[in-house]
C-alpha cells in the first residue's frame, strides 16, 4: 500500500533525470564532446517520447501519473539544470 505523497514517484524521478540531463549538457559542451552531448540529449528526448507513446495507450496515464505532468515538470527542471550548470561554468571558467 504505497502512498505517492511520501516517496520518490516516477514523475519526481524523471524531474531529477531532467535536471541531470541539463547539467550534463553544459558539462559536455564545456568539454567539446559533441557526440556524447548529442547522444545524452537524444536519450533524454527519447525517454520523453517513450512516456508519450506508452501514455497514449493508457488513456494519457503513465505509471499512475498524467503524462502531461512528466512533460510539464521535466522541461523546467531541464532548464534549471542547464541554467545552474551554465552559471557555475561561466563564473568559475
Amino acid at each position: 500500500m504505497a502512498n505517492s505523497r511520501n516517496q520518490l514517484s516516477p514523475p519526481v524521478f524523471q524531474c531529477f533525470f531532467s535536471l541531470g540531463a541539463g547539467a550534463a549538457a553544459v558539462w559536455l559542451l564545456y568539454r567539446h564532446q559533441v557526440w556524447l552531448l548529442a547522444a545524452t540529449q537524444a536519450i533524454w528526448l527519447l525517454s520523453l517520447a517513450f512516456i508519450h507513446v506508452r501514455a497514449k495507450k493508457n488513456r494519457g496515464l503513465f505509471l499512475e501519473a498524467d503524462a502531461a505532468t512528466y512533460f510539464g515538470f521535466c522541461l523546467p527542471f531541464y532548464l534549471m539544470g542547464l541554467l545552474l550548470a551554465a552559471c557555475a561554468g561561466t563564473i568559475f571558467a
Partner: protein
Amino acid sequence: MNAKQPSPAIKLVYVVGLLFGIGIIWWQATQLQREKASLQWPVVTGKILASELVYVPGRSSHYRADITYNYLVNGTRNTSHQISLWSSDLSSYGGITRAFVANHTNGSPVNVYYDPEHPEAAVLIPGADEKMDWLLMGMGGFCALTSIGGLIARLRKEPRLRALLSDPAAETRTIAMHKADIIRGSNALGVSILLGGFTFVLSAAYSAIPYFSGPSNLPGAMVPAPGQWLAGVVGAIVAFFIVRYGIRQAHRAECPLCGNFTNKAAFKTGRCEGCGTRIIFDGVPVPAAPPTDTPRPEVIRGFQKDRFIDVAGFMAFPILFACLCNAAETRTGPGLAVLMTILFSVMGGVFYFCPQTMDDKTPATAGMAKAGEPEEKTQPHWLDFGIILTPPVILLSYLLYLVWFNQALDTRSLVAIVIGFPLGLVAITYICKYRFIRDEKAKAPKPPAYVPLTLIALWLGGTLITVLFLACLAFKLMGHK
C-alpha cells in the same frame, strides 16, 4: 477480508541504501585490489621521452603531468603515458604533480612497472591511493550500516503497526495530542538536521582534504595538520549531538501508538499517517474528511507485461545516460556506471511493485477529450508557459555561448544580468498575472499546476542566480580575481 499491511516502500528505500553502500564497497575493494596488484609487477628501466607540467584552465583549473616514456619488454619497445593506476596523469594532485615532473626530466632513466600479462600496460608509480579507496569504502559502509539499522528498526516496528492496522476498532480509535508539541517537535527536528548536517559537512570537508591529495608517501604530498583529523572527529560528534537533540525533541510529535512522526499535515487530516488512528488536537476533533472513492492500490504480485515494459523502458534511459556520462569521464572507471545501473534497477523494482496512489487531481480519464470541450482552451497555458520561460532561455543562450568558448563572465555582462534578469522576471510576472486575471474573468479553465509552479521555481532560481552574480560582481569590483 485481507488484513491491512504496512507500506513496503520504506523497507525498499532501506534496501536501496544497503545495496548502494555494498556497491560502493565492492567497487572500491575491486579497485584497491587491482591497484595493489601492480606492486608485484616486474620492473624494467625505461626512458622519459617527454615531461611537462600542463596547466588545465577552466572552472576547476589544475595541473597535470604530461609524461611520455618507453621501455623494452621481450624485445618489444612499448610507449606509455600512464603514471599510476589511481591517476593516469596526476590531475589535481598539486604538490605531487609538480614534484613528479621536476624529478622526471626529459631523457632521464626511470623504473617502469609493467603488467606481465599485458606488457603494453605499465605505470611509473605502482600501488594504490589507499587513503581515497578506504575513505570511499568507509562512506559505503556508513551508508550500508545506516540502512541496516533503519531496516532492523522498521522490522521491529512492523508487527505492532500490522496489529494496529488490522485492529477492527482502527477506524474509531482516537488519541489526544497537542498542536504546539507537534509544531515544536517538527521545527526542532528540521533545524537540528540542518545545523547538524551543515556542521558535519563543514568538518568533513576540512578534515578530508588530505584524503584527496594522493598517497602520503610520495614526494610533494600534502601533510595533514596535527589537529585536522581531530577537527573532523569533533565536528562529527557535535553534529551527532545536535541531531540527537532534534530527534529527542521530535519524540513529542510521535504518535503514542505506532511511533510514527506526526507533522503539520495531520492538522488537516486528523489522522496518524502510520496507523490511521484519529487524533484529537487540544481537545477539539478535526472534522472528518469526505470519503474518497480512490482505492489504495495493492502491491503488484505476479508478472504484468505492460507494467513491466513501462518500468523497464522508463529506467533504461537513465541507465544508458549514466553509462554515457561515465564514458565521458575516464578517471572514475566503469564502477560509477555499474553503481548507477544497480541503483536505477532497484528503483525500477520499487516502481514496478509499488504503484503510486492516484493523486486526487489526476483525472482517471486524463488525456481523453471531453465531449464538447474545444481544444483551443489548452493553448493559452502553453503560451503562458512560453512567456515564463523566455528570460531563462535568453540568459541560458548567452551563458551556453560562453561555456562553449570556455569564457568567464566579464564585469559588463555581470552588471547586465544582475539588472536585466530580475527586470525580466518582474515583466513576465505582470504579463502572467494579467493573463490569469483575464482568463478568470472569461471563466476559462485554470492552467495546469506546472504553470504557476514553474513561475514560483523561476522566482526562486532567479533570486539564487541574481544573488550569485551579484556576489561575483561585488568580488570583481573589489579587485578579487
